[in-house]
């Protein structure tokens, strides 16, 4: 998985591309979130339009990122979910946990 990091309006945006799966993608997500927090980020937006597969370890890492950011007093939100990622959030009922937005300007304005 590839992760592009940028700053938009004071929000750290992580654009994920590829598979968030066990052993590689989940580790990359954890590392990127931890590096962003260590660099001083408070609020993080995961931009998921390029994600093709999320296995249980990947969704677990997204939950881990959510709780890590929240416990530090920040917010982690999701934007541009492909249909299959949205399906996973519905099936796992994590759609009730994450704030999800269709487009990035709307998501950025919500922080």
């Amino acid at each position, binding site marked *: 998985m590839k992760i592009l990091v940028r700053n938009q309006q004071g929000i750290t945006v992580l654009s994920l591309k590829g598979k968030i*799966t*066990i*052993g*590689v993608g989940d580790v990359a997500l954890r590392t990127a979130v931890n590096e962003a927090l260590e660099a001083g980020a408070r609020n993080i937006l995961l931009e998921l339009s390029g994600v093709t*597969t999320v*296995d*249980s*370890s990947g*969704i*677990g*890492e997204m*939950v*881990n990122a*959510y*709780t890590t950011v929240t416990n530090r007093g920040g917010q982690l939100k999701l934007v541009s979910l492909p249909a*299959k990622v949205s399906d996973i959030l519905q*099936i*796992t*009922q*994590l759609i*009730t*946990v994450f704030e999800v937005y269709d487009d990035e300007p709307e998501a950025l304005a919500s922080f």
Partner: protein
Amino acid sequence: MPTPEEEPQVKISIGSRYDHIDLIQVVVDDALSRLGLDEDSRHWVGIAIREAVANAIKHGNQQDPSKRVDVELALREGHAIIRVHDDGQGFDPSTVGDPLAPENLLKPNGRGIFYMKNFMDEIDYQCRPGGGTVVTMRKRLPELDSADADEAPSGA
């Protein structure tokens, strides 16, 4: 003796490394494509297989790369039958909590079997103390519902 229909279409044996999971998914996806399963269904079946293999590597074989994970795809009565066998100490799936329970919803682990149950028609665990775990997953092949089921491809 298995009937010809039950002879595995695909047999793969890997060492217990996560980077081998992609290989299994690619090979099984190709076989299921030849058997007529549509792309959307193959995506979800592929994730279920990933979960079974990941569990075998992580919980069964404790990520010992010298221990094998064997994956078989066979046909029976209009279903794809996928078996994943590890070399570990056995596993009791009933010990895994409900990932939808409020107290578990924010846990980072414990969704693998839930994924498999959601994406396959049926899953079954056979655990033999000291003899590893075999998870068997079934997925109906819609094209085989019709009267010409015996014209299904016989090889992958």
